[in-house]
């Protein structure tokens, strides 16, 4: 069930510095239609960007062109259920990794530099661990979960919290079969998203609605699969992910902002610093929150371009 009519907008929305992808194509990731995008010259060396949960590739519309202007071909994709990719029946980290590898396979067999934000950072980290021969260097933008982001609570309270999480999630699953997102005006959708992204400007959020939503007769809706929900539960522990970091063998740059916020992962610089591999670096950016590349696109582009070196 992919929402494929992305060319339907009569006029492209505008935001200072934003450029919509130069190319978009759909690939078959083992039965799921995954939408890939590119910015920059088709013959330039590739760098692959991975977006965060509940985001989509066009959240890179300001950041990606800055790397493209430095001679890179920026390749990204909408995760299954996100943006222009198909609404899947099932979702898991393992499925996201397989979809990501289908994207890398489409780019080519040579190892590529990869930049991941938030959930996309975690995906990139797992991918670099599982297939180090495919990732030449890795940048992680606030995408390393850590144990300290969990509240320190007594075991019986954790059980009670989990009980309500479980029944809440199951109640949601019982209701999702015919679920649709709530429609609204561009301003309304922007305002709703602003509650989860309080540090992002209203102008940017209104722009995002117009590139990440679709307009039907009854209003605008985000394209994301309405069965997806924040939170949830499962057996995975955050320390299993952060322990991928010291195992990395390729050049690695972790970037954190100093401002904590609702969508942030609450990972402290000290947590990352003690896990860095010998060749790893960390950059902590003052006065910036979880969406580093949106709040400070020029500074991030400078930092990452410097880390990656000349395009090759």
């Amino acid at each position: 069930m992919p929402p494929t009519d992305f060319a339907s907008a009569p006029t492209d929305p505008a935001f200072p510095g934003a450029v919509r992808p130069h190319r978009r194509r759909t690939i078959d990731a083992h039965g799921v239609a995954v939408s890939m995008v590119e910015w920059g010259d088709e013959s330039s060396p590739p760098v692959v960007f991975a977006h965060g949960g509940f985001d989509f590739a066009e959240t890179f519309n300001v950041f990606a062109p800055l790397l493209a202007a430095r001679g890179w071909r920026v390749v990204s994709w909408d995760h299954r259920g996100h943006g222009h990719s198909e609404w899947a029946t099932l979702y898991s980290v393992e499925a996201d990794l397989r979809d990501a590898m289908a994207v890398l396979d489409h780019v080519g067999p040579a190892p590529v530099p990869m930049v991941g934000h938030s959930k996309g950072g975690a995906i990139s980290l797992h991918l670099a661990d599982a297939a180090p021969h495919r990732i030449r260097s890795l940048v992680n933008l606030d995408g390393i979960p850590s144990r300290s982001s969990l509240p320190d609570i007594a075991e019986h309270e954790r059980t009670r919290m989990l009980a309500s999480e479980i029944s809440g999630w199951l109640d949601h699953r019982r209701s999702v079969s015919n679920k649709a997102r709530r429609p609204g005006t561009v301003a309304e959708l922007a305002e709703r998203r602003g509650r989860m992204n309080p540090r992002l400007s209203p102008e940017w959020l209104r722009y995002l609605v117009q590139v990440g939503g679709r307009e039907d007769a009854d209003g605008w809706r985000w394209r994301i699969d309405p069965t997806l929900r924040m939170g949830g539960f499962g057996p995975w522990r955050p320390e299993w992910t952060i322990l991928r970091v010291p195992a990395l063998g390729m050049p690695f740059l972790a970037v954190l902002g100093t401002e904590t916020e609702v969508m942030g992962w609450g990972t402290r610089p000290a947590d990352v610093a003690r896990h860095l591999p010998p060749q790893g670096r960390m950059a902590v950016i003052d006065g910036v929150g979880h969406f580093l590349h949106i709040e400070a696109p020029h500074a991030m582009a400078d930092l990452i371009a410097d880390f990656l070196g000349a395009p090759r």
Partner: protein
Amino acid sequence: MTAVHLHHGRSTLALHLVRDGDGPTLLLLHGLGEHTPAEPPAAAHAWPGPVWGLDFTGHGESTIPGGGGYTAEMLLGDADAALGHLGSATVLGRGLGAYIALLLSGARAAQVAGAVLVDGPGINGGGSGPTGAALARPATDQAGAPDPFALLELARDVRPPDYAMTFVHLALAGSPAADPITVAAMARPDWLVAVRAAPGVVEADAAPALEALAAMHSSG
């Protein structure tokens, strides 16, 4: 064998009436790669009430989705759709279905009148922690049940003992059954060692365990 079709997300699930009866409801959860049997298993021959069996996503007559993404939690959602239809049930789970029965007995403690865990395919899962191979593809993309993605992914899903124990505690605290969890399996993966060792969890053969759970219903 008649079946009703339930919806869980984008899956359509087949819930089979294996044998009708008058009394409490028994729900069968099959093992990895299996499907609902045509007849009740031997241990459930004496069960007085209706015996239902659910085909999990990717199995039997239920939806085969594209591109995998299976987790035990999504199959818990499948089982919860069946429980929502039946109202309440005693659950007999084989292999993978035994693990899902445990999760369901904790997640919906008030509606699960005892879970009996027996041997079957997929009882081990992928161990207690992450495995080395986070990136795996099935050997075949051949369509049909059982889904090769289900066989691959649900043979490797991690089952930390402390995670399983969370559901044990919830079941013991909230179940109407005197014995909310019965371990009848001989296999002992780490998660099941922990479950068996919990005070309040009993070990017994499946047939007498089901007889006792059925008797609990008839005695009110």
